[in-house]
C-alpha cells in the first residue's frame, strides 16, 4: 500500500454566504472546492498552482484541520483530518505568506520559543534550534529584535523558521513568497528546497500563483481553478503535452480594435491572449503548428497592425494553465477581482 503523506477523495467545500437581514432567505452558496482527488507521496514537494480565489487556501485549511469539508475526505500523515485531528496536528505545521502571527512586543527568539512550546519541544532544544535556523536564514543578528520592528521579508523568514522549528512530517506553505522582493523570495525558495532535501521523509505542500516558483521548486504540480483540479503531474510532463504546439509571443503596434476572439476563432489558433500597454500590444498564441503563424500575420496586417517583434518559445506552466483554463492566470484574477466582496 502506498505511503501517502496527503490523500484526498472527492473533497469539497461549499461556503454559505450570508447576506443582510432582508436577504437572509436568499443565502448564496460559494463552491470553493469540488471533488478534489489528490495524492502526495512522502518526500514530495507538491505545488498547488492557481489564481487567487481558486481554492488553494481552502484546501490547505482543510488539510491543516482548520476547516471541515462539506463532502469527501482527506488524510494527512495517514490520519483523517476530521475524525482524528489530534493525530494530524503534532505532525504538521503551516506558514502563510504575509501572515502577522506572533506578538510584536516579543523578540524573534521569544516568538519562536512560544510557538515551539505549543508543540511540546523541550525549551533548551528549542532555543538551540532557533539559533541554528535563524543563522541559516541570515536572521541571527535580529534574534533579540522585537518582531514588530522587522521588515516584511525578515518577518516572513521568521515565519518560515517557525514552520521548520517543530520538524513537521508535512509542512504546508501557503504563498510563502507573497509580497517579498526578488532576493528574499530566492532565499526562501532555497531554504524550502534545502529543508526538503535534508530528509527524504519530509513532505511539503506549497501553494503559489507564481508560475516560476512552481516550476523551479515543485516535483509535481496540480493546476487548480474555481475549486477544481484541472491537471496534476510533473512540470515537465505538463509542458510535454504542449510541446507539439507552436507557442509564439508577438509584439505589435496598438491593436486597433482587434479582439481576442477574432484570433481565437481561427481554426489553427488554439489559444490567444492579448494585452496592450503604453502603445505596445503583446500577443501570446498557442498555434496548432508553425504554419498557422502566416494566418495570424495576415489578420494583423488586415487590421493595420505592425509586427514589431516575434519569438517562438518553449512551453511554460503559464502556457499549460492557459491551455487548461482558456485564459492566462492574470486575466482570471482580473476577471474575478470585481466580484470579490460582493
Amino acid at each position, binding site marked *: 500500500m502506498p505511503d501517502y503523506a496527503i490523500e484526498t477523495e472527492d473533497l469539497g*467545500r461549499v*461556503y*454559505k*454566504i*450570508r447576506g443582510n437581514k432582508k436577504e437572509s432567505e436568499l443565502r448564496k452558496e*460559494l463552491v470553493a472546492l469540488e471533488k478534489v482527488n489528490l495524492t502526495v507521496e512522502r518526500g514530495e514537494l507538491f505545488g498547488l498552482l492557481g489564481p487567487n480565489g481558486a481554492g488553494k487556501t481552502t484546501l490547505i*485549511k482543510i488539510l*491543516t*484541520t*482548520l*476547516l*471541515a469539508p462539506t463532502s469527501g475526505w482527506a488524510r494527512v500523515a495517514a490520519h483523517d483530518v476530521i475524525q482524528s485531528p*489530534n493525530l494530524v*496536528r*503534532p505532525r*504538521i*505545521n*503551516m506558514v*502563510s505568506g504575509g*501572515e*502577522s*502571527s*506572533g*506578538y510584536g*512586543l*516579543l523578540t524573534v527568539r*521569544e516568538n519562536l*520559543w*512560544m*510557538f515551539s*512550546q*505549543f*508543540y*511540546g*519541544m*523541550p525549551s533548551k*532544544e528549542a532555543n538551540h*534550534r532557533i539559533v*541554528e*535556523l535563524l*543563522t*541559516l536564514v541570515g536572521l541571527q543578528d535580529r534574534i533579540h529584535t*522585537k518582531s514588530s520592528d522587522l521588515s516584511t521579508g525578515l518577518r516572513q523568514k521568521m515565519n518560515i523558521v517557525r514552520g*521548520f522549528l*517543530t*520538524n513537521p512530517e508535512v509542512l504546508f506553505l501557503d504563498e510563502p513568497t507573497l509580497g517579498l522582493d526578488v532576493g528574499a523570495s530566492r532565499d526562501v525558495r532555497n531554504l524550502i528546497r*534545502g*529543508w526538503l*532535501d*535534508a*530528509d527524504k521523509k519530509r513532505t511539503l505542500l506549497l501553494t503559489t500563483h507564481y508560475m516560476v516558483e512552481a516550476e523551479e521548486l515543485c516535483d509535481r504540480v496540480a493546476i487548480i481553478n474555481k475549486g477544481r483540479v484541472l491537471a496534476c503531474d510533473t512540470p515537465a510532463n505538463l509542458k510535454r503535452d504542449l510541446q507539439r504546439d507552436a507557442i509564439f509571443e508577438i509584439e505589435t503596434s496598438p491593436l486597433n480594435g482587434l479582439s481576442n476572439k477574432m484570433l481565437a476563432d481561427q481554426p489553427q489558433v488554439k489559444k490567444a491572449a492579448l494585452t496592450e500597454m503604453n502603445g505596445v500590444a503583446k500577443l501570446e498564441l498557442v498555434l496548432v503548428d508553425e504554419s498557422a503563424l502566416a494566418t495570424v500575420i495576415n489578420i494583423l496586417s488586415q487590421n493595420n497592425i505592425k509586427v514589431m517583434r516575434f519569438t517562438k518559445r518553449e512551453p511554460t506552466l503559464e502556457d499549460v494553465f492557459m491551455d487548461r483554463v482558456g485564459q492566462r492566470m492574470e486575466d482570471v484574477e482580473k476577471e474575478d477581482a470585481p466580484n470579490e466582496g460582493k
Partner: protein
Amino acid sequence: MKASESLAYSASEKVIGWRLFLKTILARAYPRIIGQQREKSWIFFEIFMPMLAVAAYVYVYRAIGAPEEYVGFVVVGGAMTAFWMNVLWSMSSQLYWEKETGNLALYIMAPNSMMAVLLGMALGGLVATTMRAVAIMVLGTLMFQVQFSVSSFTQLFAVFFLTMIALYGMGMMSASLFLLLSREAWHISNLAQEPIYLASGFYFPIKSFNFWVAAAASFIPLTLGLDAMRQLIFPSGAALGFLNVNLEITVLILLCIVFLIGAKFLLDYMERLAIREGRITESRR
C-alpha cells in the same frame, strides 16, 4: 555547522499530555507578562486614568459626609476594576484579535489544547493586572489615607483567589463565545463595560440595590468578591455587606466550577462549530 546539517535535524521526543498542557499555559502567559514590561503606556492608561475615577467618587462621598469606609470601598473597587477591564478586553474579545493576526489558526492547528491557551491568557493577564491593581491600591491608600482592619487574612486570600478564578473562568467562557464573532466582539465588550461597573458595585456597596437586583448581579464574580473583601478589610464592612462572607465564599466556589467547566465545554463546542462554518480564519461570510 553546514546548512544541510542544520536542516537535517530530527527533533527529540516532544512532551505530550499534562506536560504539554503546562508548557502551553506558560508559553501563552509569557507575552502578557513580558509585554507589560516593554510597553509602559499602561502606567498612564491603567493607573492614572482609573485613579481619576476613584478620586471623583472619594470627593463626592466626602462632600456629602458619607462614612469614611466608603472612601476605602472606592479605592478597593478602583483596584478591582483593573481585573474587570483585563477580563473584558484581554480575555473575552482577545480571540477576535488573535483571529485577525493569524495566531488563532496556529493555536488550533498545534497539538496543544485550546483550554491551555485560554488558561495561559488568564494566568498572564492575572499576573500583569495584579501589579496594576496593587499600584492603584497603594496610591489610593496613600492619597486618601484609607485605614484597613483585616478581620481574617485566610478568608481574604480565599475570597480574592476564588474571585479571580471565577472571573477569569467567566472570561474564558466568553472568549469561547467570541470565537465565532468578528468585529462585533469589540462592540459587545464596549457594551458590557459600563453596566458591569454599575452592577458589580465598584464604587458603592451593592446592598444599596434591591435584594433581587443584587442577587442577579452576583452572577458576576466580582460583585460578591468585592462585597466579601470589603466586609473583611473594613471595620464596619460587615454592616454594609450583602450576604454573609461564608455564604459568598460558597457561591464563589460554585461560580468557579460553573465557569471553568462551562468554558471547557463551550470551547470544545465552539471550536467544532467554527471549524465547520469556516470561522477560524475568516469572519462571518
